[in-house]
């Protein structure tokens, strides 16, 4: 017998799952990614490197800046383009803005109804209107940063190899710093909301992050440092998304992985909150990815405030974007809100000749199936079918999957 979950709701993109029951017990879970393939690796091949970040941005609307930045980092490495520190700092600001926008979207609009048992946030307005509006304010603020640095709320074109089309003014940065500070209080409230969830899903055995908090030149997997090529990507017949394993085991990327491996980077309120909920985070249950995102939301707001003031007071050195080579190979590792994102290009005479992208949701596929399997085993026969299905969908949602992203994760 197969229990089919309907297409997932309150997630980005199109996917579903089926639970295989044999002899009265749960045998297997299959997550089926139904979103059509979009072939981004093929779309970039043959293109002048300058045009590539704009195309890659279109992989995902929720995290376009992460894609653009992973793309420009890979291009810069391939072609020997030097980047001044101001440009790096503005990129960090863009990524923090994206974390704010994306985590707020997930926590307040997509996951919050699960905590209080509603089908959506609209039906929560009469009772929880205040909380929802706080979330919208935070989300809008994340987008303000994305618009300022990226050029648009969605699919900005301002992030280019070597620098930016337009640079923000001192005044704009000052306003950002002030607003970020004012929103920290709201974000702290959502931390306590998600701390109330009971432990569910599988336990994260192998978290994976980039070597620095938001990007790096290598990956940290458990306690080893690797390049992504040493992971195994396995195609599956029933899904457009491949699975990724490390030494035969599923890995986990995202906010929870970042706090498990990089929690010591947090300062201020976010560090205090991480200490307060240390046991939950360290238990490693994937449901606490929600809690980890909430703590990171506080971190991102605090860091934006500090960073924007810093950039404004130091003044901005613009990048020239000059390439020392016209051919080469480069990998860009970036922490998108949902976890590690990889862009990898080979460039010849200014043109991309080979390209590969692996997205966070793709990395998490194996872990998502394992989580559903463990929870399905725990609940099957003990819960009525409707509730059983809903509870499983909540676990899918805790991964904050971005299914559109996950369907073009191919090594050509």
């Amino acid at each position, binding site marked *: 017998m197969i229990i089919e979950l*309907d297409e*997932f*709701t*309150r997630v*980005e*993109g*199109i996917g579903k799952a089926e639970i295989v029951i044999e002899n009265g017990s749960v045998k297997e879970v299959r997550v089926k*990614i*139904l*979103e*059509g*393939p*979009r*072939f*981004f690796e*093929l*779309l970039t091949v*043959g*293109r*002048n490197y300058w*045009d590539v970040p*704009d*195309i890659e941005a*279109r992989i*995902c*609307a*929720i995290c376009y800046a992460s894609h653009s930045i992973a793309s420009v980092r890979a291009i810069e490495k391939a072609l020997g383009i030097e980047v001044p520190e101001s440009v790096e700092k503005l990129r960090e600001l863009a990524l923090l803005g994206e974390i704010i926008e994306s985590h707020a*979207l997930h926590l307040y*609009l*997509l996951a919050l*109804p699960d905590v209080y048992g509603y*089908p*959506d*946030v*609209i039906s929560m307005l009469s009772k929880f209107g205040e909380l929802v509006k706080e979330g*919208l304010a935070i989300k*809008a603020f994340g987008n303000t940063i994305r618009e300022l640095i990226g*050029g*648009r*709320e*969605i*699919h900005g*074109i*301002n992030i*280019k190899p070597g620098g930016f*089309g*337009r640079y923000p003014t001192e005044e704009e940065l000052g306003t950002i710093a002030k607003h970020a500070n004012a929103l920290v209080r709201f974000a702290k409230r959502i931390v306590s909301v998600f701390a109330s969830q009971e432990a569910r899903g599988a336990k994260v055995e192998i978290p994976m992050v980039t070597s620095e908090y938001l990007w790096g030149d290598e990956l940290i997997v458990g306690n080893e440092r690797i390049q992504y090529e040493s992971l195994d990507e396995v*195609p*599956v*017949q*029933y*899904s*457009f998304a491949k699975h990724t394993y490390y030494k035969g085991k599923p890995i986990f990327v995202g906010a929870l992985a970042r706090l498990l491996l990089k929690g010591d980077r947090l300062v201020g309120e976010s560090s205090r909150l991480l200490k307060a909920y240390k046991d939950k985070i360290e238990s490693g249950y994937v449901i606490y990815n929600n809690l980890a995102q909430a703590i990171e939301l506080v971190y991102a707001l605090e860091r934006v405030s500090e960073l924007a003031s810093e950039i404004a007071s130091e003044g901005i050195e613009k990048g020239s974007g000059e390439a020392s080579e016209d051919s080469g190979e480069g990998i860009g590792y970036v922490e998108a809100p949902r976890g590690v994102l990889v862009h990898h290009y080979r460039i010849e005479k200014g043109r991309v000749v080979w390209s590969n992208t692996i997205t966070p949701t793709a990395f998490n596929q194996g872990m998502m199936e394992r989580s559903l399997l463990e929870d399905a085993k725990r609940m099957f026969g003990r819960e009525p079918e409707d509730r059983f299905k*809903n509870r499983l*969908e909540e676990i899918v949602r805790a991964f904050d999957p*971005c*299914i*559109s992203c996950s369907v*073009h994760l*191919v090594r050509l």
Partner: protein
Amino acid sequence: MKLGVFELTSCGGCALNLLFLYEKLFDVLEFYEIVEFHMATSQRSKEKLDVAIVTGSVSTQRDLEVVKEARNRAEYLIALGTCATHGGVQGGLENSVKENMKKVYGDIRGPTKVLEPRAVIDYVPVDFAIPGCPYEKEEVFQVLIDIAKGVDPVPKDYPVCLECKLNEYECVLLKKGVPCLGPVTLGGCNAKCPAIGLGCIGCRGPIPDPNIPGLVDILKEIIPEGDISRKLKTFTRW
């Protein structure tokens, strides 16, 4: 009035951008009840709809079924975003989808049949089309309010150049020699890219009667000819 939002293959941005209306979304909710919108609600319905919004391109058998369902249920259908109106980035691929599948997935067939990525308007008649990657959210807001009030919304038919001139931006194409698709691309974005000194990448799709040879003549002076067709095909097959 009852509103449904349907998502086909895309980056998710067009559905997401509706949530980015923020307080204007509450204004929309004064007129509309959202009965279908999988990114925003777990409620599912088979009700008749006054207005359906379809985002994304038809790229799989599943997408085709969804777009037909939306058309059958809705009085008024809006194709929203460049994927729905022109095919989007995935619609710009030149090789057949069969070849691409082979290159990328080998022998994996996947969970649903894959089709050549096409615009929604290639499969079903639509009542209104709003292009943009992403579209301007004020535009969809205005269209929804117009429909609710029984007013016919007005499509835009002028190029990006017009908005560039109205803003008195320096022409990036003729003055700075930056490749720009503004002359053949539908306006409505307020010339966002030329505003920051970058060339238009054509994300809103072509104007009704574009002078392609004229633009190609200018671009030939700036970039290799092969790159011109690649640039033009970024968001649509033309």
